């Protein structure tokens, strides 16, 4: 009888604790952020680019109109599997195409869906050199970089 009572108590506690389910956070569900760092080919040190404007094909506005930038974080188009980026400097323009896998996933009735991006790759570029560091885009801005772009 003691065991039955203990069992019933366990049942009650279990039901109560299982009722405290995590509510999903509906912000920043898509991991579509890619961090790009500019470096010099000569010595590998960071480069600061003046008057850099970054635009993306299909975007409704400029991504990053900046005066000076050493590192930029760009959002990828999660509705597609490729994003074409244009880097406009005062005297020249560069192109960078990033390809990736974008898979949708249902999250909840409150949050709707999210897109999980993976297998990031550099499909094409017009820079002097590009180096891929990580194939997994990020959900939020962090200190980790995904791509190094080298200038002569």
């Amino acid at each position, binding site marked *: 009888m003691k065991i039955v009572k203990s069992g019933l108590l366990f049942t009650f506690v279990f039901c109560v604790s299982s009722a405290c389910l995590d509510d999903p956070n509906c912000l920043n569900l898509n991991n579509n952020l890619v961090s790009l760092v500019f470096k010099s080919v000569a010595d590998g040190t960071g480069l600061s680019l003046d008057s850099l404007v970054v635009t993306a094909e299909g975007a409704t506005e400029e991504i990053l109109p900046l005066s000076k930038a050493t590192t930029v974080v760009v959002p990828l188009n999660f509705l597609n599997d490729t994003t074409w980026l244009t880097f406009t400097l005062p005297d020249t323009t560069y192109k960078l195409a990033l390809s990736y896998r974008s898979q949708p*996933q249902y999250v909840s009735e409150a949050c709707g869906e999210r897109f999980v991006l993976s297998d990031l790759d550099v499909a094409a570029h017009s820079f002097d050199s590009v180096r891929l560091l990580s194939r997994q885009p990020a959900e939020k801005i962090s200190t980790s970089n995904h791509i190094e772009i080298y200038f002569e």
Partner: protein
Amino acid sequence: MNGRITISLIMLVLSCLTRTSAQVVTIAGDSIRIDSVKHYRFVPTGIRVGADLISIVKDQRQTNFNGWEVNGDVDFHRYLLSAEYGKWGRDLPGDSASYRNDGNYWRVGADINFLTKDAQRNVFFLGFRYARSRYSESMSIIPSDSLWGSSASSYENTDLNARWFELTTGIKVKIWKIFWLGYTARMKFGLKKNEDREMISHDIPGYGVVDKDTYWGFNYQVMVRIPLRPNPGAIIPYKKKKKK
């Protein structure tokens, strides 16, 4: 004299059930104790079949869930061989995203009974399960983003498979004659599912939401137990016939 005849008859019946030599029987007061013999270990004492009440109630009361689950176990007194089979479907409508899945699942495993001396054959167990699920799912979304705009899309995954493991614990209590009630708490882990598909699964029948590495489940079961033989250590009351 009549008591000895009764004991002899019991021994005869039990020996016929097991096709072995006669078992040891001890008598104390007004009860007979059936002592265990090692070759009884693989002869089940009973079979239990039942259904999960939580699935039935959810199916009736929730518009976004349909499903049921049946379970069974073979009682070897100290150990139980268990199996469960169920069907599960979810329909989650929404303004910007709707999701639907449908499939079935099964679990097999074994439990250890820690109430071997209970005269009512009540069970408190710890156990392990191996589970598999086969299902299909679909999703319709209208994602909207300030930078990339919006577009409507539909996705579908068919013939999906998943497997996982469970640690289980619970009780089974005799209520009246052959009717039993019980519950099982499960800790599900080790999920492996199809990865290379158009969309990522949200919910797996039998397991739950896939984003969690471990997932807790709970069943409340009503069962019927069909006895096959007395439990070792069972105490059978008998009435001595009064000598005239």
